[in-house]
């Protein structure tokens, strides 16, 4: 399993544009600076600034979209270069194949959030908007690590869909709709959707973020487990039938 994951990372080394996909991590820190510089800076605390830079749209929309695109691209390029056939010949187990892709997505997500955290600290302090304190920096980094580590679990259904498709149009369109649905459900019944369930867990203890109802972690975890388990089972079934080679 470890060698399979290592191979995945070796393949990533050849894809230079992967680095460019980290650029959106700095988007919200820049937007936050422009917003607070243009408007009122009264009562601007580090947590309020970080809420803008890392805990809002970056978590709700930007990171899920980047992860959806990343995973679709990784799987599609395997199909395009006829690598899947060779992987099945080795043979590589279908579940192991999906797990190896998930590991790439998981590590990418953590790196993305760490870049976002670093960007928030640097941009916030250079612009003079916030005072950097050890506690606020530590809290930001820990929360970003938590977001980076948990959010990919909400994207497992997209990973499962991508592995069952020869093309990229359906996974990309589904990613767009899926993220939008998760975003809307945050203020409704978040437990219907795995992504909104993950975001619910992440937002439960952020100062100043008010959810409609208190987050019930067990319900959210159950939703994530059900969606992830069933989508992976379906994907393995499709892969076993040999429809995607």
């Amino acid at each position, binding site marked *: 399993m470890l060698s399979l994951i290592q191979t995945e990372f070796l393949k990533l080394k050849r894809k230079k544009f992967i680095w460019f996909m980290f650029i959106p991590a700095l*988007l919200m820190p820049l937007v936050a600076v422009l*917003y607070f510089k243009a408007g009122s800076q009264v009562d601007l605390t580090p947590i309020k600034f970080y809420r803008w830079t890392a805990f809002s*749209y970056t978590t709700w*929309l930007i990171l899920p979209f*980047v992860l959806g695109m990343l995973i679709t691209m990784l799987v599609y390029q395997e199909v395009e270069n006829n690598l899947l056939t060779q992987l099945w010949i080795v043979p590589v187990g279908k579940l192991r194949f999906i797990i190896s892709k998930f590991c790439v997505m998981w590590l990418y997500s953590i790196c993305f959030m760490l870049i976002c955290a670093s960007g928030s600290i640097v941009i916030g302090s250079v612009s003079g908007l916030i005072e950097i304190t050890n506690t606020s920096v530590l809290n930001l980094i820990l929360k970003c690590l938590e977001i980076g580590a948990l959010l990919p679990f909400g994207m497992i259904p997209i990973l499962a869909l991508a592995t069952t498709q020869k093309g990229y149009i*359906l996974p990309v*369109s589904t990613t767009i709709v899926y993220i939008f649905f998760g975003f809307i459900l945050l*203020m409704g019944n978040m437990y219907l959707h795995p992504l909104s369930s993950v975001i619910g867990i992440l937002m439960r203890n952020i100062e100043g973020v008010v959810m409609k109802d208190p987050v019930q972690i067990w319900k959210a975890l159950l939703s994530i487990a059900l969606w992830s388990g069933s989508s992976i089972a379906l994907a393995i079934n499709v892969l076993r039938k040999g429809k995607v080679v």
Partner: protein
Amino acid sequence: MTLYLWAERLKLKRSNIFKIAIFSTIIIAAIVFMQGQFIYYGERYIDEPEWYLTAIQSLGSFYVFPAIIALMGTYIICRENQDDTLKSLVLIPVSISKMLIAKLLMTAFYSLLLYGFVFLIALTVELSLHFSLLNLNTILNNFKMYLLTGIGFFLAVSPIITLVYKLKGSHWLALIFAEVFAFLGLFASMQSTLRAIYPITAVFNISGYYEATSSEIILSLISLILCGTVSILFIMRFNKNSSKV
């Protein structure tokens, strides 16, 4: 040019991109309808006349439709590379600039169709809920707004779509940029001058979704014309370098 358009139409008939776009639109319409069930100050959003007509347009336009339009455009352009048909086309020889213009015109047409379809769904829902409160003037005004938004969004994302021809293997980046570009409109809409200049929000100024002064409308027009001009400049540049394919 007619021949190029005819060829593009035939190529698209074999693809299911538009069917997937339509399916995504139906799902988005259902999600927005679901959001309309949320209660705000004791009243459901959907109970307010014209809420659905405006909500689907604004939510869809900031989060979903520009990315779908960019996906259609990038797919139409990228498939020549992916299917390895570009070399054969250059051998014929086909004018790269004419081919790209035909592809852009097809994207513009599909963008219009997509918004026309969204309008049809929104109108059906509104008529079934508030038949007696809607008048012909409101319907025609909204129809004009949707069509202008459709063509405006195509112009706004056209430089990104055109750039894809050069990005080739990295066309995934274009999709991420298109989504981020649309989503930034949320923040650009907070300031009137920026709202008039930023292409995504400029579309709303021109379509009449935002109330705008005549100078703001002129600024918005200039912004969108600039987007179109940049796309044409890219195409002319690509044509010069077509021998390097």
